[in-house]
């Protein structure tokens, strides 16, 4: 024993920790294999509006590879998101419910605590290996809420060139840790709330950023918003490809892969930089009173950057699909290509932090390729991201839960119902536990779209568009009061009334607060059942 050196100790410690790690991982991979069950790959491109994709008729040739992929997929031409930014949009996709049900409609909000079992990962059950990855931290809050039903949660910083994401180190308490560190103590974009570590973190991040070689990125390296996470598109797509290949060897799986691009900042590689310096000028639309009044030429410049970034994403997507196809990974997989919300470059509004719900913000791409599908099918009826959950469950032989508000997608067992209404909700200024009184709601029914603005002005207001004959939403039909308006308006207002009656009353009650299962805490907290905490104005 006296010969047991420091080096021996390190070897034994390394082997022991490796063995412990392997013992925890092995059962997860080995216990679930079901022969023949199809895999599901959901690829989410953050902030990708259908309105800027040549796949859907956009003037610039932004997506030749998406078009190529569409030749073997169902292409949904009138697909909408549940919200106009990541939190509600992603929550609707993952839960199959609208924001008024899942209640995650504030920035960095959470799904209603009593509904966290109503999600796609839980619904797939443990016969599937469930993997979740998002470069955007906001969906990672949801992953934390669903953690017990996700075998593998890849850290947001995976495949990044520079990363200083602290929350992901706290795997057992990731929701609180992300919010505490990455959304508060060390959050970039404002002075850090942590004076010593936060400042050190900030200086370190800037110095790393300054040292990085950005020859391939003339506008700088893409960054995931305020998160301390810089990446190269190539690395991210390589990482996604490697992840899928790894999963492919281990039986049926559900992989939710949420990529930051083409979200702002739009920073393509030099190959795609300035490729759209053309004379394209989109229809000029009047500034909206709730807009930020950004000038037309600035919006067009940003649109150009966005389009170039989309083209860059498209090229990487093409490379990914080719690689997966060559490896046979797609032979038994449903591949869903979708976004969480759109992006705006019109009416004085840039990006998507807005009260508005025009098509640029809500009309998103949806392509679903079934295993072995060789022909393209185009579907034109209105559909919504809430429909993806029930459709995938049906396709993989799972029962469709009664809590979803989605319907089966046409082309995969659903009916083409032009009379079905579907909704997009924006309510980031409304408390999650209160009725929706400050919100914008868009209802698409058939070819018409009714937009309802509530709580911003003294009186509620409406806009009405005919999407079939007025693709750009230039002519508001509401002032002319067409005959069908009353029925649409009544339906929307009735819907608002009914959802506002179902507001969760116990969302912020103490009984939901404590993660620590201590009996006396539960007993004491049960005394507070039904309580509400006042919200400061």
């Amino acid at each position: 024993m006296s010969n047991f050196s420091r080096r021996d100790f390190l070897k034994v410690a390394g082997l022991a920790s490796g063995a412990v790690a392997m013992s925890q991982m092995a059962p997860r991979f080995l216990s679930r294999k079901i022969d023949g069950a199809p895999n599901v790959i959901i690829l989410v491109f953050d902030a990708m509006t259908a309105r800027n994709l040549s796949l859907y008729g956009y003037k610039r040739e932004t997506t030749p590879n998406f078009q190529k992929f569409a030749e073997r997929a169902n292409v949904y031409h009138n697909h909408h998101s549940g919200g106009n930014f990541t939190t509600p949009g992603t929550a609707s996709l993952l839960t199959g419910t609208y924001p008024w049900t899942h209640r995650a409609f504030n920035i960095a909000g959470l799904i209603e605590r009593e509904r966290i079992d109503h999600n796609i990962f839980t619904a797939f059950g443990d016969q599937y290996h469930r993997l979740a990855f998002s470069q955007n931290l906001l969906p990672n809050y949801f992953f934390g809420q669903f953690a017990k039903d996700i075998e593998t949660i890849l850290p947001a910083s995976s495949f990044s060139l520079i990363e200083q994401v602290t929350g992901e180190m706290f795997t057992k308490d990731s929701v609180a840790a992300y919010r505490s560190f990455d959304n508060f103590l060390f959050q970039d974009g404002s002075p850090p709330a942590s004076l010593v570590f936060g400042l050190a973190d900030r200086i370190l991040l800037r110095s790393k950023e300054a040292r990085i070689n950005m020859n391939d990125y003339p506008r700088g390296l893409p960054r995931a918003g305020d998160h301390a996470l810089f990446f190269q598109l190539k690395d991210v797509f390589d990482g996604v490809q490697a992840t899928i290949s790894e999963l492919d060897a281990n039986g049926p799986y559900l992989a939710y892969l949420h990529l930051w691009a083409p979200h702002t900042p739009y920073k393509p590689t030099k190959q795609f930089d300035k490729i759209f310096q053309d004379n394209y000028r989109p229809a000029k639309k009047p500034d909206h009173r709730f807009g930020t009044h950004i000038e037309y030429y600035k919006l067009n410049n940003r649109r150009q950057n966005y389009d170039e970034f989309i083209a860059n994403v498209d090229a990487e997507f093409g490379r990914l699909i080719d690689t997966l196809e060559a490896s046979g990974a797609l032979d038994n997989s449903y591949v869903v290509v979708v976004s969480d919300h759109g992006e705006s470059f019109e009416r004085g509004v840039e990006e998507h932090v807005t009260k508005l719900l025009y098509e640029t913000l809500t009309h998103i791409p949806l392509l679903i390729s079934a295993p072995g599908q060789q022909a393209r099918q185009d579907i034109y009826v209105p559909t919504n991201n809430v429909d993806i959950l029930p459709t995938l469950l049906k396709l993989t032989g799972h029962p469709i839960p009664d809590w979803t508000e989605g319907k089966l997608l046409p082309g995969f067992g659903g009916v083409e119902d032009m009379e079905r209404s579907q909704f997009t909700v924006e309510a980031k200024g409304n408390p999650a536990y209160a009725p929706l009184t400050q919100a914008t709601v868009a209802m698409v029914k058939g070819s018409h779209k009714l937009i309802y603005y509530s709580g911003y002005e003294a009186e509620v207001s409406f806009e009405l568009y005919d999407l079939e004959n007025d693709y750009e939403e230039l002519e508001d039909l509401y002032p002319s009061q067409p005959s069908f308006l009353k029925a649409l308006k009544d339906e929307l207002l009735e819907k608002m009334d009914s959802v506002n009656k179902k507001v969760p009353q116990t969302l912020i009650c103490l009984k939901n607060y404590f993660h620590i299962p201590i009996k006396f805490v539960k007993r004491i907290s049960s005394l507070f059942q039904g309580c509400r905490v006042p919200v400061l104005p």
Partner: protein
Amino acid sequence: MAIYNRIPKKQEILPVYAVIVLMIYGWTILKFNYNVTGWLYFLNIGEIFGVFTYSMTVNLLESLLVLLGVIAAGVVLPKKWFGEWFVARGASLSMLVLGLMMYIADQFNTKQYYPSEIIRWSPAILVLIGFVVYFLGRIQRTRTAIEFFADRAIIFLYIAIPVSLISLVAVLIRNIF
């Protein structure tokens, strides 16, 4: 043994630590209050409490780290320069350095901006702070005023330390179970 003797006494360390705690915790609590009105829109009290526990734990570690730095200065520097009037000099050093850090932190208002000028000048500012601290200790009136202030600040330790320790335990429990 000589080095051990140079470590300031507990009665001297406490007021200095109190000043550090006041500044570090004060900064975070200010930011916390700014954010909490937004969080109340969608987080429950337990979740807000969770952010608070992480913040207090981080503050505890930060304050101990800064205190360690001040004590190290007391040990390393000649006694006449720093250790002689440790409370006054330690407290003023903490106030000035943390004040400088607050100023720099406040410059990070956007994702792109880097306050390179102030950071480049920081070593010179720190030397200047060193001189100021030395002279503050030599002037009886300022020395007394700083000691008075630091002594009164100890009251915050009675709140901050128990809260931080409870927070530390809460963070550990949340991450173990």
